[in-house]
């Protein structure tokens, strides 16, 4: 055994800034491990990439004709649709956060981490951060496919970056909701089902695919305040123009609110597992 390894760290001998640096490093190591998982599962990677592209193409061509008539004059459905699909895909993918955590729990990997002297939140941050990185990749890919079928960011590069940031921030917030689900529900399959039950109605009862003004009154009221709708509206306004500040502020309020509730809830849940 190498000497440098045999020397055990003495508990409590590490300074606070040092400890913080260690915590950051722990988060990075766990994030890296989760990112490797994406790459090591080529099938998962391929299908999770094809799925949003399929949504882009299906909705653009199947519903495009029918829905375009209920849009503001001069707005192409593909321009309307893409920001919605970004959010929809991010929302669906966020359920994978629950699945990933549930799998690690099932396999005892989390127990191993918990019995080691590593930063407590590293497992949770490593998970959500890796899912965020994946979202960056998939969102940019979808935008590229969108460009091939006529989608354009029409408000300049700064607003385009803003639109993508809204998508990523929203996906990140949802990841924390599903972290909580993953830590609470037993088993990866249950986590997957729970995720879809929660996410499907939210995504479809929103402005992702159609303007909410086309929905019946009760549903319209629900859809108008839904975090999905306000985030889609914000991302959409930033990509194709329109009223930005109101939906953007509402979206930020939702995102901050979700994080403020679910980050502490997840940390609490993670600690309570002992």
């Amino acid at each position: 055994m190498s000497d440098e390894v045999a020397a055990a760290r003495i508990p409590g001998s590490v300074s606070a800034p040092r400890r913080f640096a260690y915590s950051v490093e722990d988060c990075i190591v766990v994030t890296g491990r989760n990112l490797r998982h994406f790459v090591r599962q080529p099938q998962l990677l391929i299908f999770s990439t094809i799925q949003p592209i399929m949504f882009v193409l299906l909705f653009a061509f199947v519903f495009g004709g029918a829905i375009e008539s209920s849009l503001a004059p001069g707005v192409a459905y593909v321009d309307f649709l893409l920001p919605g699909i970004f959010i929809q895909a991010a929302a669906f993918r966020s359920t994978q956060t629950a699945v990933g955590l549930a799998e690690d729990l099932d396999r005892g990997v989390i127990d191993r981490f918990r019995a080691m002297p590593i930063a407590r939140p590293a497992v949770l941050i490593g998970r959500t951060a890796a899912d965020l990185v994946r979202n960056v990749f998939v969102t940019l890919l979808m935008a590229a496919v969108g460009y091939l079928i006529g989608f354009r960011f029409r408000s300049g590069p700064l607003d385009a970056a803003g639109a993508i940031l809204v998508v990523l921030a929203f996906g990140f917030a949802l990841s924390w909701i599903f972290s909580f689900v993953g830590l609470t529900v037993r088993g990866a399959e249950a986590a997957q089902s729970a995720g879809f039950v929660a996410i499907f109605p939210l995504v479809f009862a929103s402005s992702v695919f159609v303007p909410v003004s086309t929905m019946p009154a009760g549903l319209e009221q629900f859809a108008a305040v839904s975090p999905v709708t306000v985030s889609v509206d914000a991302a959409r306004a930033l990509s194709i123009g329109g009223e930005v500040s109101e939906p953007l502020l509402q979206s930020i309020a939702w995102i901050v609110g979700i994080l403020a509730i679910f980050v502490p809830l997840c940390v609490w849940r993670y600690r309570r597992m002992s």
Partner: protein
Amino acid sequence: MRPAAVTQGLVRRFGETVALGGVDLEVAEGSVVGLLGPNGAGKTTLVRVLATLLRPDEGRAEVFGRNVVTEAGAVRELIGLTGQFAAVDELLSGRENLRMFGRLFRLSRRQSALRASELLERFGLADAGDRPVKTYSGGMRRRLDLASSLIRRPRVLFLDEPTTGLDPRSRNGIWAIARELVGEGMTLLLTTQYLEEADQLADRIAVIDHGRVIAEGTGDELKDNVGGSMVEVRLEQPAERERARDVLLTLGCEEPKTADRPDELTLAAPRDGVGMVAAAARALEEAELSVRDLSLRRPTLDDVFLELTGTTAAVDGESSAEPQPAVEAPAQA
């Protein structure tokens, strides 16, 4: 010598189930303690409490004087844990697993890489080191899991059923590694369902059942309780069972304690060795009993259990009062 691990009056319940019903245990530094019991006896629960994964409801548990609840962080610096289910990352290679754990144990990149190679070599995984773990056999996974616990040399290592489900060859491999670690002076707390395993590795054995330590001693002491070896006879004719028993009783065997299968007899033998087998064979032949099988064997966990509790141990896990860790963890908040 000061104890590496101590528990006093440790109680842990899962709903109505009492997994630990007041466990007192002491593991001396540098010793190997085997925790022997059937599934559901509370072994895993005890190890999980000591490894800071589970809070006790009552009682106290310390590792090198550090309380596992109030000083969990300090305890984690001192322990290594290898669970029942090899908790290694299937999608990463063995080397990547070890490097990741190395980084998490504060080794530099270079140190982690070195340490990974060193451990792969030592655990006979050098050739498989760059393959994804999902291609590993059960025995290889356990070895990698064990290696992961040894990145930074722990002061005390908890081995939770390290060989359950392994073939004999892999089991021997794990035993050899455990012996090596003991030779280097590491303290081990080992849980097992197999008396032989505890016997092979442990200095002292604590027998645990229904969340209580019901006996403690060396392997020989425990076996002496049962009365040494067991004679096992299998007859052609179940009807001749009574007569066969009488013949063996005249040789000094004890009354059988359980009704086995109708054509089988198991009795504690008065002595060991070939002579005992020969005497039994001769006596049965002289009595003109047709014997299908005759053997002399060391006592098993079942025999020890029978002696200690009057009931057969549920070695097959039928009465599992101990939930599987993966299921149990999210269940208690």
